[in-house]
């Protein structure tokens, strides 16, 4: 029997997520978000500015903790794991792509891509595996069309090139899930389309699960499934994965 892809196996689940920020008074951002992401699924979360999309993504990626609710990764509770376990999750299982690329200015393109493995490995292990790692990073940069920019620093790259570098960095550790926070938000429409296309292609090549946060509805429509976040609540509550389903509520 062939292995269906995407599958209906839930890889990431959020149950009743609440999150508030305290700026003088309490500002509730998420008011009970339930979400299930299937392995291999391309999920787009849309919503207006300040709707809590990024906060939700940070909670899913263990960059932040919910005030209430639970996050499960492959059936195991993730949000209450130890700090080191959550660091391991971010380093190995999950790749991040940010709106503002967040490349380290002192490092060149190749070195920026290698950062996750530099964090994971000690100096001796890194030096032992360096040849293999550089080869993998070079292949990734070649795949995102930056093989001619290996030794350039971020200051010498365009916005699109920086985002391509950030995508290559996110894929270096061969994560199971990619969390992308407005990856095209800081780019012009044409470059944004190109980056989005690249993400889609890479997802299919690497059989990745992709959760993308955007306010661009036209991009979100190209995802397998789209959810809208409004008033701190995820308006859809579909637990079953439905390819190319676009569900807008409210």
């Amino acid at each position, binding site marked *: 029997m062939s292995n269906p892809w995407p599958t209906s196996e839930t890889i990431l689940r959020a149950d009743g997520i609440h999150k508030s920020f305290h700026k003088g008074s309490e500002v509730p951002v998420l008011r009970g978000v339930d979400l299930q992401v299937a392995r291999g699924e391309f999920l787009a979360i849309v919503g207006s500015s300040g709707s809590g999309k990024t906060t939700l993504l940070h909670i899913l990626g263990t960059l932040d903790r919910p005030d209430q609710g639970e996050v499960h990764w492959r059936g195991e509770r993730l949000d209450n794991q130890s700090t080191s376990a959550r660091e391991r999750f*971010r380093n190995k299982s999950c790749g991040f792509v940010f709106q503002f690329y967040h490349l380290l200015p002192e490092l060149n393109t190749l070195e920026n891509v290698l950062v996750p493995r530099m964090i994971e490995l000690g100096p001796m292990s890194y030096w032992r595996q360096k040849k293999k790692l550089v080869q993998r990073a070079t292949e990734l940069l070649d795949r995102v069309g930056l093989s001619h920019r290996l030794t350039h620093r971020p200051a010498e790259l365009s916005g699109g090139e920086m985002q391509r570098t950030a995508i290559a960095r996110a894929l270096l550790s061969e994560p199971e899930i990619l969390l992308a926070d407005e990856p095209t938000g800081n780019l012009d429409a044409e470059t944004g389309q190109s980056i989005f296309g690249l993400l889609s292609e890479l997802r299919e090549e690497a059989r990745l699960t992709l959760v993308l946060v955007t306010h661009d509805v036209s991009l979100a429509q190209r995802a397998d499934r789209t959810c809208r976040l409004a008033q701190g609540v995820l308006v859809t509550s579909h637990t079953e994965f439905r390819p190319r389903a676009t569900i807008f509520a409210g």
Partner: protein
Amino acid sequence: MYILKLCGKYMTTRYTALASVASILLGVATLIVVNSVMTGFRTKMRERLHGILSDVVVEARAPLTGFPEPDYIMKRISQSSIGDKIAGMTPAIETLAILTYKPKGYANALTRPVQIVGIDPKGRCEVGDFASHLVNKENKAQPSFELRADALEWRQANSDIIDQKESWPGAIVGYQIATFRAQGMNYDEYLVYPGNEVIITTVANGDGGRPEPKSYKFVVADLYKSDMSEYDDRYMFVPLDALQNVCGMQGRANTIQIKLKDFADAPLVVETLRKVLPQMVFVVSTWEEKQGPLIYAVKVEAFLINLTLFFIIAVAGFGILSTFAMMVIEKTRDIGLLKALGASSTGITNLFLVYGSALGIIGAGAGAVIGIILTYKLNAIEETLTELTGFEIFPRDIYYFDEIPILLEPSMVVMVVAGSLFIAIAAAVYPARRAARLQPVETLRYE
């Protein structure tokens, strides 16, 4: 690995941090040079102070009366429990006197106070470094109060101004008593030559122990040059028996100089002698105790200079602290990214601590190398600067050293380097902890 990688990058790209390195470098180099000079100065001075004093000195509580039978006292000391620790002993009389002499061509005689010491030259050599400070080469080999060829020649040539009828005992006069150097001169002018006659006026024990002034004539046999103005400007040595006669102290002395086989035994020897000898008559002390204030003054001076200079490194430490504090603010986003990619708080702390250590190692290491080179080249540098500026940076006639005394102690270099490293690392702790506490989510949210 990212810690080493980023530290390496910060070292080569962040030039503001290099200012901190320069501060540490300067502080360490200066501390090494100054400490080497101070230690060299202190060691030379100790050698010279020790040169005129033996290890342990037994003195009469009443110097003008002294104590009788010094040979018997020395025998008692030899037979005491610390007798085997003694390498040599000699009695002496030390008292104040007025020296009168008439330089050639002067109409009137000159007078000045001196410390006159009656010694047995052979015995004196056994307890201290006496012979090497004598100017006459023959006396250096075999010290004596006999007139040597230079003194006899001078007397021959100046027979008109000397008293040939009687023979007077010889005297060894401090070099600075016998000479002077006028401003702008680069040689010493002699007031008293070996062969000159001088008169000593001192206080002698008169009838019924009543002190009375007494004068006696001596012939200068040699000059004493220890390069310590403290001694060369004050001391005059005469034969012990001659001074005993002058002072009315026949068969007596007022000090016994004791040389030990090992100076480490000095406290035990002093403690024992204080028990063996009646304290009403004798005062027993080591040479260090006798010269305590001077040694202590140099020690205090060295400490104060060290303290002051250490502030340079402390300032460098604050430089690192402020540079790092600014860097944490500037690098907030990068720190957040590293944490988002899985770096731990400990890792972020270590990043800044390793960077601080690297700055410290480079600053202190380079400072140590430069400090050591400067120390060894200090005299050459001083000579070059004196030549270039025409201003004598190290006036030899003030310090009485032929060159700047230097003693580079490896333990001092290690301590200075370790102290600087500690400051550099300590300065990085606060910013490092602050960086580690940053929440990635806060730093990544906004551009």
